[in-house]
Every structure is written in structure tokens, then in C-alpha cells.
């Protein structure tokens, strides 16, 4: 089973995302900020990371930069999931190695479509 780490400082969002991702066949772990996510990745590198941008302690972009420098850190598919929805944020995320980008609010269709675009799940019918 593929592993997905859900990183968001909102418990509600983590719960919603987790339910959808589990429905797509992922096994999920959660982290409330970038630093906790990095610790989780050092412990076990997931196949995918769903990543909020603005979080306390360490934000999503800083987490991504750090992750990509870790041993094996180039492997996880990273999908941003954030309210930042302007071109500048999106291109910056892509430049630092994000694979896909979800603009909140999201729903099941969007997550499925984006994970498929990132090469992670079969396309929804």
C-alpha cells in the first residue's frame, strides 16, 4: 500500500484529506507543521506528501526545500494543497520541486485528478 503524509496545521483539513486519500487506497500519516513532517520523513520516507503552505514552526515551502536535500528526499511526490492561489506562489513551488498544486478549497474530484496528474493513482472515470 502506498503511504501519504498529510501535512496541514488544521486538524479538520487533515481529517478531510485523509478520508479522501484513504478512499483512493493510500495509507496516511499526519503532521501539523513542516518540522514534524520532516521528522516523519526521516523516520520513513512516504510515497506522497500532501502539503499546506502556511504553517507554524516550518512552512510548506521550507519543508519542501529541506526534504529534497534529504537522502531519498527526491522520491516522494509532493502535492501542495493551499489557499495561496496566485501565479507567483505556484511557480515558486514548482521551481523547488513540487509535483502538483491544489488550490483550496478542494474536493474529492480535484484531489483524485491532481494525484493522477502527479502519476500516483489511476485517473478517475
Amino acid at each position: 500500500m502506498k503511504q501519504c503524509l498529510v501535512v496541514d496545521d488544521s486538524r479538520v483539513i487533515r481529517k478531510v484529506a485523509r478520508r479522501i486519500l484513504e478512499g483512493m487506497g493510500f495509507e496516511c500519516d499526519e503532521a501539523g507543521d513542516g518540522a514534524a513532517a520532516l521528522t516523519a520523513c526521516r523516520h520513513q520516507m512516504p510515497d506522497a506528501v500532501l502539503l499546506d503552505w502556511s504553517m507554524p514552526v516550518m512552512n510548506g515551502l521550507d519543508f519542501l526545500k529541506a526534504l529534497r536535500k534529504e537522502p531519498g528526499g527526491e522520491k516522494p511526490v509532493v502535492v501542495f494543497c493551499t489557499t495561496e492561489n496566485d501565479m507567483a506562489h505556484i511557480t515558486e513551488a514548482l521551481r523547488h520541486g513540487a509535483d502538483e498544486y491544489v488550490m483550496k478549497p478542494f474536493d474529492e474530484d480535484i484531489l483524485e485528478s491532481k494525484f493522477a496528474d502527479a502519476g500516483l493513482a489511476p485517473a478517475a472515470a
Partner: protein
Amino acid sequence: MRVDRAELLAFTGALTRRRAGFDIPRGSGAVELRLGTLARREGLDSVWTMLSSIRRQPDSKLAAEAVEALAPRDTWFFRDRAPFQHFADAILPEALMQAGPTRAVRIWSAGCGAGQEAYSLAMLAEERRARGVRVDAAIVATDLSRAAVRRGAQGVYDQFEVQRGLPIRRLVEHFDKEGEDWRVNSALRRMVDFRLVNFLRDFSALGEFDVIFLRHVLTHMSPQIHDRVLGRVMDHLRPDGWLVLGPWETPGNLAADLDPAPGVDGVFRKRPEARADRRVEPRAA
């Protein structure tokens, strides 16, 4: 006023079938949902009052608008993926070769909805061009619905729409942000020509195409109308041209004129010897 909903539903189904060929969604709830906005705009207290009035004047502008509002319209970018991948990898390169240096490859997005299908094809053409290949392609996108054609020509999509089927890199590459919405860039908009076309009316002015995408349209039509519409659309496909249908959509009676493309569902090649006279209906004038 007491109105018989079942009777009005039957009338409405007959109206859309006769005017546009498609069957209305099952159940009064779905019909109320699709027509609610129109009824409110007309200042009528319910969809049923509006349908009664349309029944009295079936040739009114309101009747035409109701038909448009009832049309199935759900659509998204790169819908079902595989046909678009096949277009990029196989159809477009071969069509370009077939067309040669003197004419454009003509592509028809038939029943285009708000334009996502046409712009998906335009993005693929543009991406091929960006790799340094000469790509002379023109896309014609048509729909029955005025609102759909207007939206397509504007090329503005909201945040939900640009996240259905559209990879983020393509959003960055081909769209500009406008307020909270996203607009297809002008290079793509120039490539696509949006026009109002009802498959049951005359559209002979559209000319001939190398590739026709007719997806998620026939599935809403009864078998008899299905064959008639497909036949009329196919009259605009060049010999050796490609027809791309949606999942579970089949060529029906026209199967003899089409060869299924190997390895991908819903893609067909028109046989050079395809003849219009084999069909149920005479060639459209």
C-alpha cells in the same frame, strides 16, 4: 394553478428530443435544477409554470433557452485522458503529415460545452509547436448552447474548473490569472473558433475536418437520433480522418464506415470508401 408534472415532463422530453436530440435527465428534481435559474429570471414562481407557458408557445425564444439549459453540460479539461494522449502522440503528428505544408489541420470539437475540450486540444498543439515543430492547426468548437459558446470564446474558468483534469504545469503555461479566475492565453484563444451549431440543423458551412472529437454527446441520445447525428457529423470528416468518441459511445449503424484504432478506446478512422448512401438518412444539404 394545478399542473400535471408527469405530463409536463413528457412534453419537455419530447421538446428536447425534437429540437436537439438529447433525452432529459430522469426525474423532476433534475429538471427543476437545470431550469431554476431561467424560471427565476423570467420572474415565474416555478419551473412548472414556465414549462406550461412553453407548452403553449413551443416556438418561443424561451423554449429554445429551456432546451439549452436542459442540455447535459458537465465537462472538464483532458477528460478521460487517454484520447488526448493519443491525439498528441499519434493523431496530430499523422494528421500534420497528411495535411502537408500547404494547409492547416482542421479539428472539430463538436458539442464543446464551455470549451475545455477544445482548449485541451489547443494546448497539445501549442506544446508540440513549442518543441520546434511546425504546427498549422485550426480548431472549430461548436455547441447548441449560446451560454457555452460565449463562455468558450471568453476562455475564463474558475478555480474549480481549472483543477479538474488540468495539470498545474499546463495551468501555469497556458493561462493568466484574472481576479479569482483564470483565462486561457491569447495564443490558444486565437487557435479556437467558437460557433453556435445544433446537430439537427444545417451546419454544412463548417467544411471538412481531419479530426473530430464528438465526446459525451451521443450518450445522451436515443439510438435512432444517435445514428442520425453521427452520420451528419461524419459527413464533415475527411476520408482517413479521425473520429474520437466518449467511453461507451459506439458508431452504431456507421461502424461499417469506421476502423477502430488499435490500442485505444473510442478512436476511429474513417474508411476512404465510406459512403453516405449506406446510411439511414440522406446526406445533409
